[in-house]
């Protein structure tokens, strides 16, 4: 009796596996063409150090003096990286940069730009609401600072940086 049950079990498993069909194809940078690679970060800027969240995310090594550079644009003393995301820019698929569930970005590649860089269509989302849609050229060593919504006594900032083409 036991061999019959075992054979039956194998037959059922085989049938179930074949019924599920092909697994969904997975696209990663290894398999799919990309236009570049970006680093996106959500940064909290404030003048009140007691309001910092205590996040320990490091600044990007290839973006020297990021705090000082942010301070040139935004009138705050303290800048804290809340979250960060390294992301391939897929040539044929939308790419999401999600350093936080609260503020994130969709990127569609529009091909290489003249004189280097990448042509992009950007959308900054706040949960289910798109805050801005923008066409941009992103070039290496030239970050994009996006001044986002106020939070507490400070402001949320989205930084997008082209790590490599």
């Amino acid at each position, binding site marked *: 009796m036991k061999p019959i049950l075992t054979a039956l079990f194998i037959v059922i498993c085989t049938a179930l596996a074949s019924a599920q069909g092909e697994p969904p194809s997975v696209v990663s940078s290894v398999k799919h063409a990309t236009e570049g690679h970006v680093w996106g970060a959500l940064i909290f800027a404030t003048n009140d150090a007691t309001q910092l969240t205590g996040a320990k995310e490091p600044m990007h090594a290839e973006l020297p003096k990021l705090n000082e550079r942010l301070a040139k644009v935004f009138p705050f003393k303290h800048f804290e990286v809340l979250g960060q995301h390294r992301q391939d820019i897929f040539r044929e698929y939308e790419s999401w940069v999600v350093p936080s569930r609260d503020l994130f970005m969709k990127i569609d590649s529009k091909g290489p730009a003249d004189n280097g860089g990448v042509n992009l269509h950007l959308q900054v989302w706040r949960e289910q609401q798109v805050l801005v849609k923008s066409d941009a050229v992103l070039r290496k060593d030239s970050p*994009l600072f996006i001044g986002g919504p106020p939070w507490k006594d400070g402001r949320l900032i989205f930084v997008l940086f082209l790590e490599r083409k």
Partner: protein
Amino acid sequence: MKPPSEEHDLIRWIDGEMNETERTTFEERLKQDPVLAKEARQMRELSSSLRAHLPAEMRVPHADYFNTQIEVRITQMALDEARAKQAAPGWGAMFQWLRQPWFALAGTAALAVLGFFLLNPATGDASESMILSSYTPNTHVQARTYHDSAADATVLMLDGLDAVPAERKVSGINIQRSEVEPELASTTMFDSHGTPVLMISRDALGNPMITPRG
């Protein structure tokens, strides 16, 4: 079948786009033409029904929406001009070329190019990132773009955004790579240990949906 001009007048009448004289003239025509009057009544009912069932505010479908609308408006103006020309030829005919559609399009293009170069000083340096255009669906939000030389960064400043409530805990994530599944239209994101952290996909309205929720 009604001629296009009559159809156009009917739509303008329903949308309230006619001036006082045009409306009076058109309503006189309605009194004398029962077929046209019937059609006007049906279209007005349909319009009212649509207005009642559609949301008062709708999202602009795409970034080029306003450009498309400008082109449509230019075409409408060209049709109006052509009708006026047929109705009252005279001295103005000498300058009709100024009213040609190609002139309006050329003027629009020239203004767009001029505005682009005047309002976008970042075009001078090919090593800088640039914001070519920006659009904020919320009309209370203003987008300003400029290049800050001191910060060596391109800035897209969004002013007028609603504040995130102070009591809300805004927390970050550290994502190192992602995998796209085209058949499921979803992206799975992984941390530095290769552990899946979240998945982003689209809901029925095309809005992003992050799971698991924070």
